[in-house]
């Protein structure tokens, strides 16, 4: 756009130049009358002056009816400053002439009044060449009585004053040297007629202008003198003024001048006509400068036609609070008429044309270096029109042109230029460009060329330019948005820091630097990071940064900036209390059911969702009031030097929390763990949202939600704080165990271990001391182990009443609890008769669930490991250990956990308790072992012998007491056989079973159980190790008996009566007879059961016992039986008797035995089910009858 001929055509800069650009101009100002409003004297306060200035500026459009009756719309532009040099350009563009002067002054005395008048007159002289008229608004001393309702006056002095209506007309006639119309007002009064006075003033201006216009228009165009722009004067020296060309030039210029005047006088149509006429003439004579002016005038007039509202909108915007009497209302109507005019007015330009003309005008101006300011102003005006037309790109190109115009301007004007540019760029939405201009303006304020650097203004402009760079002052928002150009943003913030520092706002400088580090960290190189961190450190040495909003003088609030990532927090983990300190629910209804709580179905979406949801969730543990709560942080120092972070505390919400400040020195780049601790002083919900730090001299509140770390944190962690709970210190009388626990319940506080031989017992005193603050009012003891509950009860037992009597334990007091330990074991070797079909609970099943019972020990470790996975499953092991059943018991270790649950005071009310546990390790050494057993009929029918092969598994001599009176010594590792007389199992214990004898095949098992119980009850094996003095018992729990054994063990359900030759046969009695004698054998059986027996087979059998283990049943040659040896009793009613008789003759002498037995038929069914079992119930008459035949 800018032509390169500018330098060729323009003359030297020594020429009078319009050196004060007016960037605020609109094209509409071409039509406005320029009025200077001056503030005179010091008495009038600037604020009041501004108030009146605003009021005066509202009168920017006045309707005046001219002599022909046409209403003219006269625009007025008020300025506060007007360089007198600009008047020189009045011929070129008439709107540059100052036509009116209004001065405002306040006086208290005549002397001051005189001074104001003098100054006013001096202004009149200054602008003498162009001034049409002037007014002087004078504010006299305030008279309180005059306006009692008014606000208190600013000046308290009282004195004589003129009434506001009292003004003196001294125009033209007054001989005094003050020839201006003075308007006297009271500062605090409403000054009602001010507007009408000003209207009148404008009228007078208009009429003078109108007369001038008429005077000019009546001049003969051929005769007019050449109008010149100030710098042109020298150019035309020596030129032929009479040439045709020059004549045309004169005419063209005058026509243009007329256009200006018409425009100002409100004659749009005329002005348009003049302008277009002038443009044609000037174009023909190549008078570029004036041609440009003509085009500009044409465009300005057209703009006035098309957009009459343009400037007013802005002024309306400027004075948001308009009052009555403002011309706004009157100007509301024109739009409609404007459109009409637009159609009617000839020569008016179309919108596109307007811009084109402006462009041409600017190009023409650009040919003259001295017209730089005109060009600049024209560019701004054109841009404003483009803005109005909504042609952003066009506006941008006009604005872009401004930058190229080379002007010798003061720094202040250059700054203004950039500010105006920024303002316009903002209007067209070019925020980046606007920001760029603002930044340039800001740098100009403090540039070395600027004689009066103003850092405060620089800072203010820098702040304004932030938004254009996508920068917000809130680091949180900034980090979320994360956009913009980091390199530029960094530079801008750095400049901001410098500006703030130079302005003297160290707090702001620190704040901005903190902001820079916080938001731009990732875009900084490591050296930059280091340097900036050092800078921050030195800045904060002047003013410490703290996380509070700063309020600037301008009212802008600077949000706090926190260094959340210096140091970087890699993890923020709330620590649960030590297991034994954890509060637990007292009412714990639901026990863990096992390790297999797994569902493949993920409720609530994908696994990722779930994880994040989990992170937000409340912590699943509890903290206790007044007890140390800890949070573990893992911090990394991202800076290459040692970073001291002091005063680190937890940020909490919710209940009152007392945090302990921590200080840590972080070496570069090594993750360091740190524990922050504190006490919750209330119970309730505690919210942990982060921590506060003091690093690099800046105090920061590092909230988790603001952190940008590798780990994503939830916005806060919540943890429930429960009321205070007591605290127990537990010790035992037994030595602690060397190894600790296969249980991974880590609430274990102490341990106890001892070794016991199988069957031995001991006691352990558990001492409980309350070291907490509150008494223990609730106490519960429980034993946990992997053992079967019944077995566990045998091994560990305590007195429940004693536990109850302990309470309460006051703080600092002790109580004790006695725990009895018993080494319970299976003393029986697996019997041959034991078959898999016999369930283990009948045999030695109790022991099958014992932790280990194998010597040799490779297996126990395996089992132990399996315990770990199933610590809570108390009976799940039974099956797994079944294999051990056949093994000989050896040394085994039983682990138990004495679980103590206690609570007190508020804790109980809140239903919380603590739980701790004592770990018991009981090594069970083998003492004796029953390797084999059998039963033999005893000499009396009511008893039987239990024969046991007992092995002493210890290395010591053992004294075994197997009946109350009999003892036996067994050498170490020796074995011996002992017969123990035992009463037979009475029918009373068994009778229940016989009721269901018929249909229940299981009853064998039950009988077995009962009989084994019976034996266990009666047999009392006690042992005493002579070496160590240990004593113990060896119960025969779970002894298994075969069916044959059972028949011996239990009493027969049949009462036998056997007589030989009429004599009742007694036990232990030998019957003797002669060979050949006939023995009459009578027998009767009585069913002593409450139940009918069916299909009984009673049989008699003779045999010879060779006493060497072989029995001879082939008696055919030795005896003969008369009568049957078998009798089948189909039914035997309860308590009924059945008889049988037969005779026997022995052929040869010798010793014979007679076996009488009775078989029950249900044996068959049992046999069918399991042939391995005995052949059913056979009840014998015991002992067998011995017959000595002589």
């Amino acid at each position: 756009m800018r032509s390169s001929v500018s330098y060729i055509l323009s003359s030297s800069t020594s020429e009078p130049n319009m050196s004060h650009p007016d960037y605020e101009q609109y094209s509409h100002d071409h039509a406005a009358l320029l009025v200077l409003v001056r503030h005179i004297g010091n008495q009038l306060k600037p604020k009041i002056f501004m108030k009146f200035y605003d009021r005066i500026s509202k009168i920017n459009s006045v309707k005046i009816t001219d002599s022909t009756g046409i209403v003219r719309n006269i625009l007025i532009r008020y300025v506060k400053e007007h360089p007198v040099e600009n008047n020189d350009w009045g011929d070129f563009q008439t709107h540059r002439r100052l036509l009116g002067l209004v001065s405002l002054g306040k006086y208290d005395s005549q002397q001051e009044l005189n001074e104001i008048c003098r100054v006013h007159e001096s202004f009149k002289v200054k602008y003498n060449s162009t001034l049409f008229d002037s007014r002087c608004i004078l504010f006299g001393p305030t008279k309180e009585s005059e306006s009692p309702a008014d606000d208190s006056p600013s000046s308290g002095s009282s004195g004589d004053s003129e009434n506001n209506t009292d003004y003196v007309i001294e125009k033209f006639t007054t001989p005094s040297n003050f020839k201006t119309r003075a308007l006297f007002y009271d500062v605090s009064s409403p000054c009602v007629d001010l507007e009408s006075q000003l209207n009148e003033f404008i009228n007078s201006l208009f009429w003078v202008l109108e007369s001038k216009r008429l005077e000019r228009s009546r001049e003969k165009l051929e005769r007019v003198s050449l109008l010149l722009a100030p710098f042109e004067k020298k150019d035309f020296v020596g030129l032929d003024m009479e040439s045709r060309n020059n004549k045309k030039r004169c005419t063209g210029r005058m026509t243009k001048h007329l256009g200006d005047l018409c425009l100002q006088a409100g004659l749009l149509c005329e002005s348009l006509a003049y302008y277009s006429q002038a443009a044609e003439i000037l174009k023909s004579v190549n008078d570029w400068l004036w041609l440009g002016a003509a085009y500009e005038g044409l465009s300005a007039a057209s703009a006035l036609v098309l957009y009459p509202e343009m400037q007013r909108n802005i002024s309306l915007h400027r004075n948001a609070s308009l009052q009555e009497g403002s011309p706004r209302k009157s100007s509301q109507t024109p739009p409609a008429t404007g459109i009409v005019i637009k159609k009617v007015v000839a020569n008016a330009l179309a919108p596109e044309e307007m811009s084109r003309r402006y462009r041409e005008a600017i190009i023409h101006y650009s040919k003259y270096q001295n017209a730089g300011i005109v060009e600049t102003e024209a560019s701004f005006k054109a841009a404003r029109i483009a803005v109005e037309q909504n042609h952003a790109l066009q506006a941008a190109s006009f604005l872009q042109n401004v930058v190229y115009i080379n002007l010798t301007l003061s720094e202040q004007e250059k700054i203004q230029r950039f500010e105006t540019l920024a303002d316009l760029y903002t209007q067209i939405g070019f925020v980046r460009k606007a920001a760029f201009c603002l930044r340039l303006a800001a740098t100009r304020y403090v540039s070395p060329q600027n004689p009066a650097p103003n850092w405060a203004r620089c800072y203010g402009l820098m702040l304004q330019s932030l938004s254009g760079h996508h920068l917000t002052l809130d680091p949180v928002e900034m980090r979320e948005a994360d956009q913009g150009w980091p390199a530029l943003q960094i530079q801008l913030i750095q400049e901001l820091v410098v500006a703030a520092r130079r302005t003297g706002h160290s707090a702001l400088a620190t704040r901005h630097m903190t902001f820079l580090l916080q938001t731009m960290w990732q875009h900084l190189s490591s050296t930059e990071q280091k340097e900036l961190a050092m800078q921050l450190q030195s800045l904060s040495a002047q003013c410490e940064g703290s996380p509070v909003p700063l309020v600037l003088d301008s009212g802008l609030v600077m949000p706090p900036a926190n260094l959340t990532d210096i140091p970087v927090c890699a993890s923020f983990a709330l620590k649960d209390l030590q297991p034994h300190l954890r509060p637990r629910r007292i009412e714990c209804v639901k026990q863990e059911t096992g390790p297999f709580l797994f569902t493949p179905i993920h409720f609530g979406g994908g696994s990722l969702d779930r994880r994040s949801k989990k992170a937000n969730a409340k912590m699943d543990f509890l903290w206790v009031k007044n007890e140390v709560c800890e949070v573990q942080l893992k911090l990394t120092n991202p800076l290459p030097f040692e970073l001291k972070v002091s005063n680190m505390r937890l940020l909490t919400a919710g209940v009152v929390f007392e945090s302990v400040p921590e200080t840590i020195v972080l070496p570069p780049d090594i993750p360091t763990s740190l524990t922050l601790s504190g006490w919750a002083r209330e119970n309730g919900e505690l919210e942990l949202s982060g921590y506060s730090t003091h690093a690099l001299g800046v105090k920061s509140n590092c909230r988790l939600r603001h952190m940008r770390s590798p780990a994503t944190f939830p916005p806060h962690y919540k943890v429930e704080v429960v009321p205070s709970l007591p605290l127990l210190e537990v010790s035992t009388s037994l030595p602690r165990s060397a190894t600790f626990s296969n249980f991974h319940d880590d609430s274990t506080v102490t341990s106890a271990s001892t070794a016991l031989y199988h069957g031995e017992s001991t006691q352990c005193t558990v001492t409980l001391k309350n070291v907490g603050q509150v008494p223990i009012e609730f106490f519960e003891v429980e034993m946990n182990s992997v053992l079967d509950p019944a077995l566990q009860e045998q091994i560990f037992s305590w007195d429940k009443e004693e536990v109850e009597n302990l309470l309460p334990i006051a703080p600092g007091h002790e109580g004790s609890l006695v725990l009895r330990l018993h080494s319970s074991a299976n003393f029986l070797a697996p019997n041959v008769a034991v078959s898999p079909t016999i369930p283990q609970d009948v045999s030695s099943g109790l022991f099958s669930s014992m932790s280990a019972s194998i010597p040799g020990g490779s297996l126990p470790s395996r089992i132990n490991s399996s315990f770990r996975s199933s610590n809570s499953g108390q009976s799940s092991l039974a099956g797994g250990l079944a294999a051990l059943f056949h093994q000989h018991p050896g040394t085994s270790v039983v682990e138990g956990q004495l679980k103590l649950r206690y609570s007190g005071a508020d804790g109980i009310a809140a239903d919380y308790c603590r739980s701790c546990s004592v770990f018991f390790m009981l090594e069970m050494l083998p003492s004796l072992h029953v390797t084999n057993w059998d039963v033999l009929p005893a000499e009396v029918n009511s008893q039987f012998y239990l024969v046991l092969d007992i092995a002493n598994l210890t290395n010591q001599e053992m004294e075994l007491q197997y009946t109350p009176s009999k003892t036996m010594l067994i050498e170490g590792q020796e074995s011996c056989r002992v017969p123990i007389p035992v009463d037979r199992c009475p029918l009373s214990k068994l009778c229940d079973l016989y009721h269901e004898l018929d249909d229940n095949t299981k009853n064998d098992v039950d009988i077995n159980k009962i009989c084994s119980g019976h034996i266990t009850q009666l047999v009392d094996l006690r042992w005493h190790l002579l070496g160590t003095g240990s004593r113990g018992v060896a119960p025969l729990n779970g002894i298994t008996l075969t069916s044959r054994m059972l028949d011996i063990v239990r009493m027969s359900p049949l009462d036998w009566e056997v007589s030989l030759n009429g004599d009742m046969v007694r036990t232990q009695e030998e019957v003797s007879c002669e060979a050949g004698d006939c023995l009459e054998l009578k027998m009767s059986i009585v069913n002593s059961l409450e139940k009918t027996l069916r299909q009984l087979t009673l049989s008699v059998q003779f045999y010879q016992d060779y006493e060497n283990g072989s029995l001879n049943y082939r008696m055919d040659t030795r005896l003969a039986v008369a009568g049957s040896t078998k009798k089948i009793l189909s039914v035997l009613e309860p308590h009924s008797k059945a008889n049988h008789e037969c005779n026997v003759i022995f052929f040869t002498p010798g010793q014979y035995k007679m076996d009488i037995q009775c078989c029950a038929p249900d044996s068959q069914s049992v046999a069918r089910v399991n042939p391995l079992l005995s052949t059913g119930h056979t009840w014998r008459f015991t002992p067998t009858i011995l017959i000595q035949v002589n």
Partner: protein
Amino acid sequence: MAVCVGIIGKDNSPKFFTCLNPAEELNFQYKVLSALDVVEEKLNCGSKGATDLRELYLGMLYTLETHKIYGYVTNTKIKFIIVVDSTNMALRDNEIRSMFRKIHSEYADIVCNPFYIPGEPICSKSFTGSIKNIMTGTV
């Protein structure tokens, strides 16, 4: 021969920036940033019409005393900016166009790279190399 090439993402944040003279990078960044205003304005005007058939090449955005700035916007609103020295008269509009087309295809390649996350700043060395080649016209 271009002096500077910038690739700007949808959110008007720079994704890639290179210039022949690294010392001037900051200055160029200011220039390119300012050019975005014009790009946005042009896009806004375009959006009123048929957006689908929009010409990707925006032409010259604006001229500075020393440089000319050209713009190109993909259909996904990725902006390519080329800064050319004003004194360089050799470059014609067509050549600028072809430069943009080459950059576009390079960009398409980088987006196809599974290791590149769309929206992240591009820091591939080979990409930088190819862009430099396009700038210097050695392709």
